[in-house]
């Protein structure tokens, strides 16, 4: 009986593994390709690279800042075909973390071949996922991007040091998914005359420019405000200024 049990369990395991493999198959076939959205980080004007642990001067507030953490969510990526139909990538949640190399490349497999004229993406995490319980992957609470005491995702986390801050440091935890405090922003990109060509089994690249200096586009310098830890009007201004400052750069096929 015990032997039968073990061998039967083995068959179950083997069969379930093979059936799972079929379900989870993500290898691009000839009918789909991969899009890689490359988030290039620049400071202020587009010629200065933005890196952690690098002293930077803000072009508008003149604050001197050295970032030690910069993380943000991008989600719900869609592509529009020339015929007006959309391809929506299911369950696409990406955590860009400047301390994790490679996280700035958002890889989207299984995009049907064709010519795409537009892209849509959401900065932040949609309200549904903020109230959906324990998540995994980019949305896992162990990424330290979820408020423990006031449920919801920290959608942008910027921390570092600055001589202009009274405390010598700054920490902006920006989020909010409800009512007037909702920071979640959907951005559209038109590929401006070009189109994104998806070829079977190949990878096409969309290059974006992300400028963290935009956080202070219309917000007070660090001497006035060096910390935000919860949703609210000031968090919304900072987050949406940052989100709206993200620019499409070019397509690379």
């Amino acid at each position, binding site marked *: 009986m015990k032997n039968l049990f073990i061998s039967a369990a083995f068959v*179950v395991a083997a*069969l*379930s593994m093979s059936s799972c493999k079929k379900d989870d198959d993500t290898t691009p076939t000839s009918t789909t390709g991969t899009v890689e959205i490359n988030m290039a980080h620049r400071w202020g004007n587009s010629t200065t690279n933005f890196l952690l642990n690098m002293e930077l001067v803000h072009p508008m507030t003149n604050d001197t800042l050295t970032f030690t953490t910069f993380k943000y969510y991008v989600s719900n990526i869609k592509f529009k075909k020339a015929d007006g139909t959309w391809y929506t990538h299911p369950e696409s949640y990406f955590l860009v973390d400047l301390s994790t190399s490679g996280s700035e490349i958002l890889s989207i497999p299984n995009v049907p071949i064709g010519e795409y004229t537009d892209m849509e993406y959401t900065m932040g995490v949609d309200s549904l996922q903020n109230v959906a*319980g*324990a998540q995994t992957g980019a949305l896992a*609470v*162990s990424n330290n991007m979820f408020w*423990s*005491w006031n449920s919801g995702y920290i959608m942008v986390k910027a921390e570092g040091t600055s001589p202009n801050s009274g405390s010598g440091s700054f920490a902006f935890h920006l989020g909010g998914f409800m009512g007037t405090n909702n920071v979640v922003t959907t951005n559209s990109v038109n590929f401006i005359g070009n189109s994104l060509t998806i070829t079977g089994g190949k990878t096409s690249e969309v290059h974006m420019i992300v400028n963290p200096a935009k956080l202070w586009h219309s917000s007070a310098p660090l001497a006035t405000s060096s910390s935000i830890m919860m949703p609210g009007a000031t968090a919304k201004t900072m987050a949406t200024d940052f989100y709206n400052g993200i620019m499409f750069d070019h397509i690379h096929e």
Partner: protein
Amino acid sequence: MNNANSPLNDRGDNFFRMKHFLLFSLSLFLLISCAKEKIEEYDGWGFYKPSHFPEPHYKFEKNNLTRARFDLGRDLFYDPILSSDSTISCAKCHAQTHGFADHNVNFSLGVNNSIGKRNSPALSNLAWYPNFMWDGGINHIETFSFAPITNPIEMHETMSNVVAKLNASSYYKDKFKKAYGNPTVTDQNLLKALAQFMALMISAESKYDNYVLGKTTFSAAEKNGLQLFRTHCASCHTEPLTSSFGFANNGLDSDFTDDLGRGLVTQDPNDNGKFRIPSLRNVSLTYPYMHDGRFFTLSQVLDHYSNGIVQSSTLDPSLGIGFNFTTQEKQDIITFLNTLTDQNYLANPYLSEKKK
């Protein structure tokens, strides 16, 4: 009991993804043979909606209830491994013998004897709560445990560390494999297992419940107490769960700078000084009372509602200037409140610490 206690669920999500009929039959055979050997284990265990309760808020969506997951959650609830120095378990401040409140202290001690400013609330019927904590800041039973684990004045631990510690434990790797088919511990599975244990904390067998269900009778004093309760208290302490799960300023203070309560979460000044209307189940055991544990006896609580109401702009209008209860009325209300003690809950073996 519904199908939630079916041993079929023990095989988890992957079971349902299998497509082959042969495989299905084979597995079914195995399950039946397993279930036959362990049938007693399923007796009395499971999630159910007491007939006089409303529909639960939490329905185990994306967290199929299984015995292995519940058992894992139960182990975690009683294990101080969740805290940074392995001294504080959930059960340390939520003891079954005290209706899952702390051991009659106003403020619980966290790691390094840290102390907070709110009383550890009694826990029961958590699957009916739309949100959690005295200020309602936590919106889901599955993300609840993240708060005490990471709070510096409670367990003072990081989720990554907890996951690493559990991944280094052969005991837990085995438990996670049984629960989720994979020995690798993830924070998601950890939180979901704890949620299963918490959601099965069902208290519905007090004398009050039996009275409502027509299974027992009340004394004259209990009846009078219930009548007074229904007149003065039940608009907030809604039956049968004895909470509307709303938030109210119940006239304790007029200055809320020390703790804004609900206002901290909503950032609406109209919510300052409001706290969760607590459930009163097992209330005679869960003292001290109020969000800051300022009252140690039900007598003090009744005195407060009788003639201790402090006026302020966010005071709940139903409290007015207090109810001016007579001594007899107070005594009868307390006699009624004692009927909310649920001995079966306090002794429920499935909710007790399991010896490993």
